[in-house]
């Protein structure tokens, strides 16, 4: 029978919800589910995870979240449990850490999987989502990161047993220096029910303030962006949606002045309802949009903001 180890991600003392996609994927395989919480505040986060795992292990001694020492801690715990599968969400943190874990365990790894077929076979997007590959991991231990948007949050069950685990980060070459957070009182991109994204059509940071933000405000939305505008420094890099940015799947995704390059579409085409505003009728974004509005965004977006306000009463 399979023994799963879920590497739990947390930030600011709170569970990162994307982790639950890894739980959901492990449940598809079946077997015992263990969760591992490392680093400062691990004991508290363990309580949050308990309803989703048979057993939660916490190891505060792992220290700062750094790939080298954490990979050792995860691999040590995986070995001592006799884990057959080690999972994490395919977030920035998961992508940084898990290949190291795989190398340490001499295990094959499947990244960013979108479906679980059986205990060793998974589907995953390749070529910016142009192709879906089916991959088979041939090693005894399997390391997998899961695409958060592709797995529904599992129902919480009875709280699992929580216990401290001794972890030894070993001698690492790495030190943590600092984190400069993007401060925002908007919902996080990965959790948002609605996302309004702006592209180069918005023309500059001014356009984000005057056109994108008010629309996002009235929708209670998170703000996303195309690579072009992140590169231009109009908005934080963290807002980039796409093949090499964040993958999102909100209920409603509004693309404003975005052409719809495959690299962008790769990160948002799973959204339930996609609206595009673009002045170019042939823009590729209209191929994925449920509702396309061919219009000048500087006119249409503010109009939409006003109309939505009115609709809300």
């Amino acid at each position, binding site marked *: 029978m399979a023994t799963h180890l879920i590497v739990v991600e947390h930030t600011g003392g709170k569970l990162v919800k994307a982790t639950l996609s890894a739980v959901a994927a492990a449940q598809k395989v079946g077997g015992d589910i263990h969760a591992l919480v490392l680093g400062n505040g691990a004991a508290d986060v363990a309580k949050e995870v308990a309803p989703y795992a048979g057993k939660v292990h916490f190891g505060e001694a792992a220290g700062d979240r750094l790939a080298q020492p954490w990979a050792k801690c995860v691999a040590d715990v995986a070995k001592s449990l006799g884990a057959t599968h080690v999972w994490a969400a395919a977030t*920035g943190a998961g992508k940084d850490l898990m290949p190291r874990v795989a190398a340490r365990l001499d295990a094959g790894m499947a990244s960013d999987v979108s479906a679980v077929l059986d205990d060793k076979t998974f589907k995953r997007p390749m070529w910016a989502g142009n192709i879906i590959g089916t991959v088979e991991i041939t090693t005894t231990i399997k390391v997998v990161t899961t695409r958060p948007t592709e797995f529904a949050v599992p129902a919480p069950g009875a709280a699992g047993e929580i216990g401290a685990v001794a972890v030894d980060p070993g001698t690492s*070459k790495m030190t943590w220096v600092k984190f400069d957070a993007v401060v925002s009182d908007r919902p996080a991109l990965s959790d948002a029910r609605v996302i309004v994204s702006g592209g180069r059509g918005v023309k500059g940071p001014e356009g984000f303030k005057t056109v994108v933000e008010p629309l996002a405000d009235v929708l209670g939305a998170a703000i996303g962006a195309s690579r072009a505008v992140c590169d231009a420094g109009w908005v934080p890099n963290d807002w980039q949606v796409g093949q090499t940015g964040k993958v999102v799947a909100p209920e409603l995704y509004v693309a404003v002045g975005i052409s719809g390059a495959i690299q962008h579409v790769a990160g948002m085409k799973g959204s339930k309802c996609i609206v595009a505003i673009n002045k170019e009728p042939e823009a590729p974004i209209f191929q994925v949009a449920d509702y396309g509005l061919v219009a000048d965004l500087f006119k249409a977006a503010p109009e939409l903001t006003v109309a939505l306000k009115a609709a809300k009463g």
Partner: protein
Amino acid sequence: MKFLVTVKRVTDYEAKIKLKADKSGIVTDGVNMIMNPFDEIGVEEALRQREKHGGEVVIVSIGTSDSTDKIRSALAMGADRGILVKHDGPLDSFAVARVLAKIVDKEKPDVVLMGKQAIDDDSNQAAQMLAELLGWGQATFANIVTLEGGRATVVREADGGLETVSTTLPAVVTTDLRLNEPRYAALPGIMKAKKKPLEEVEIGSLGVDIAAKVKTIAYEEPPAKKAGQKVADVASLVTRLKTEAKVI
């Protein structure tokens, strides 16, 4: 300081990717092949760091002799020499890491610069695996790289902001999109590149196990999205969102 930069030959990001009729892979006939864009950023970074610190920039690619022209492109940008590890057929990221570990043993670079992901398999694994095999520190998704006092201090693109980590050298660094803007190779560079040393190594001669730990056993196209509709104006958009899509 010695820089080893990895370069993978991949399908052009602008190319239309299509499945072969027998679904055994993608159509590559007539598809333009480029240097993985993240690797190009790696080459540029190595060149800029060499300008500051002096030293040598060595390019390594694993692939068929077709990869030679991507190594030459990096040499034309200004890299000093190249290594082609000759191999035909699929190779998973772990095997790539094991081969690179052998090259690192020989070359003893201070910094290995790699792309954060190859835009064909989108795996995002090889660099982190290499760092683990070597027991080195890593800095993935680099936005700013500072080499000083035997350390790499790297501002990296993380979830929710920019994280700074520091690691002793030697280290593995992976590039993110905003690390720099790669230069174009100028004609004199292209001429010079033809004379720069390019060593070829048979993969079999390295004594590395390259057996797949991960195999791609099937390829398919994603389900087509059903065609959407154009709306005439803002008012009808709002009505549809309310009554049809029920999202507002």
